[in-house]
């Protein structure tokens, strides 16, 4: 059953150095506040997993929290490159970052396999690309009925998955809607899970397009209004596109980046 706790307690208890950590949210409902708390608690040697590492992973990488990244698209959506991510890959700053690179279809199916208790997933993917030559856990598998060759990828089983949602009730049942991405699969695939929510309510009124995460598959829920900013929470906030554009400038230079993180994350109080 999910416990209602503060964000700092949740990160302290659920995220440990060296963990495989997935922060999911497909441009919508990105758990920025939780990522910032991981930075404040100075986690190290994390394997960061995410289909679309964007600004929050640029920050985690630039602050030296990770030594490995499992991903399928690393950019600043609608803007361009992630400078901290590039600096880490091209110049090993602030440290070496090992990459495990997939396609979206492959990553999505790896979460599905994890959520389904299967060791692998089958898809039509990667064929003819150079990805399998650099990512060893992409293999071929033949159909036992037709002999056709398809692609197999191993299940993703993060130590902990962190997502942001609109609401939870006091029992810890979670409700999200709008673009729900791969969050259900990422939570069900993980050994532990943390959900930050815009608000805790008495009763979860049904909403069209909702996804429900029952309390008994969630480890902890923390109420963090605005916890997705500069991403957004449908029905609560809009995407701060200006921030994403501005990040390009902030993140380009190492010192500017460090200073910005000092002021806006490290010295910030938990409830940002």
């Amino acid at each position, binding site marked *: 059953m999910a416990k209602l706790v503060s964000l700092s307690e949740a990160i302290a208890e659920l995220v440990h150095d060296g963990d495989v950590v997935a922060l999911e949210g*497909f*441009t*919508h409902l990105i758990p920025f506040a939780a990522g910032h708390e991981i930075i404040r608690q100075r986690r190290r040697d994390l394997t960061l997993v995410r*289909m*679309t590492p964007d600004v929050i992973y640029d920050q985690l990488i630039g602050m030296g929290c990770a030594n490995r990244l499992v*991903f*399928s*698209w*690393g*950019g600043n*959506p*609608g803007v361009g*490159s*992630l400078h901290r*991510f*590039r600096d880490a*890959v*091209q110049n090993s700053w602030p440290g070496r970052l090992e990459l495990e*690179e*997939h*396609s*979206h*279809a492959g990553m*999505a*199916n790896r*979460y*599905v396999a994890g959520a389904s208790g299967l060791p692998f997933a089958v*898809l*039509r*993917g*990667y*064929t*003819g*690309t*150079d*990805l399998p030559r*650099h990512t060893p856990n992409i293999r071929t598998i033949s159909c036992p009925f037709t002999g*056709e*060759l398809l692609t197999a990828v191993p299940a993703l089983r993060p130590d902990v998955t962190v997502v942001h949602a609109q609401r939870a009730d006091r029992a810890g049942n979670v409700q999200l809607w*709008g*673009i*729900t*991405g*791969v969050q*259900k*699969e990422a939570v069900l695939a993980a050994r532990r899970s943390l959900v930050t929510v815009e608000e805790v309510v008495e009763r979860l009124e049904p909403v069209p*397009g909702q*996804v429900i995460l029952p309390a008994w598959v969630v480890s902890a829920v923390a109420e963090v209004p605005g916890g997705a900013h500069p991403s*957004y929470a*449908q029905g609560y906030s*809009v*995407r701060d*596109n*200006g921030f*994403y*554009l501005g990040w390009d400038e902030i993140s380009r230079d190492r010192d500017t980046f460090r200073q910005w993180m000092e002021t806006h994350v490290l010295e910030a109080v938990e409830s940002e």
Partner: protein
Amino acid sequence: MSEGLDTAGRPDWTADEMMTVAAARQLRDGRSCFVGIGLPSTAANLARATHAPNLMLIYESGCLGAKPDRLPLSIGDGILADTADSVVSVPEVFNYWLQPGRIDVGFLGAAQLDRLGNLNTTVIGGSYDDPKVRLPGAGGAPEIAASCREVIVVVRQTPRTFVERVDFVTSVGYGRGPGDRERLGLRGGGPRLVITDLGVLEPDPDSLELTLTRLHPGATVERARASTGWPLVIADDLGTEPAPTEAELTALRALTATLDGAA
């Protein structure tokens, strides 16, 4: 003076606008289109705003049949979910909608493209482990390129972009040539068109090598050759893409205006 030229004979539209208009024209009404963000999204929404009101836009964020009245700033823009016929999970959009080959057109960009239409959005220069430039990576592109009934690539034409051989095959066009897609078991048709700021390239029916088949108004064969990193073959029946109409330009500028407001 042909339409679209100002009094001094200079076009009153930019090369990017021409490229976007040319791309939008390729989207027939009622078809389904898997759209990436940026120029493809602009072109697809321009098509919806002009000749293809019933174009079915599919975004990898899970929005099926999105009908944004402004340009989305990301594939996860709230307006896509608000206006979609249905919002599905990301695993579902790839497994139930893209993978079976239900989508008519896949719209892709690239940092590098080679003479056989293979695309690179991963690394440029050096090695994979120590690249000169690290790009965002694959995203949905490899499976879009594999599974859509046809692919349209929209990319600016420069010698650095149009290369003999891509540094990294992120998405397969025609692989190493005729028969390769079949051999690889790729069920989609591959790149039918490459639309640039200078004109339109199409695969040669026999060699599948990308060949210049149309020039945009004002562009020249010389510039196209100079902007291509391989000996560019020109189609015997080289045509000209009609200039943007007033209607197209008005619709396009109304759409892009929504972007400036947003940021």
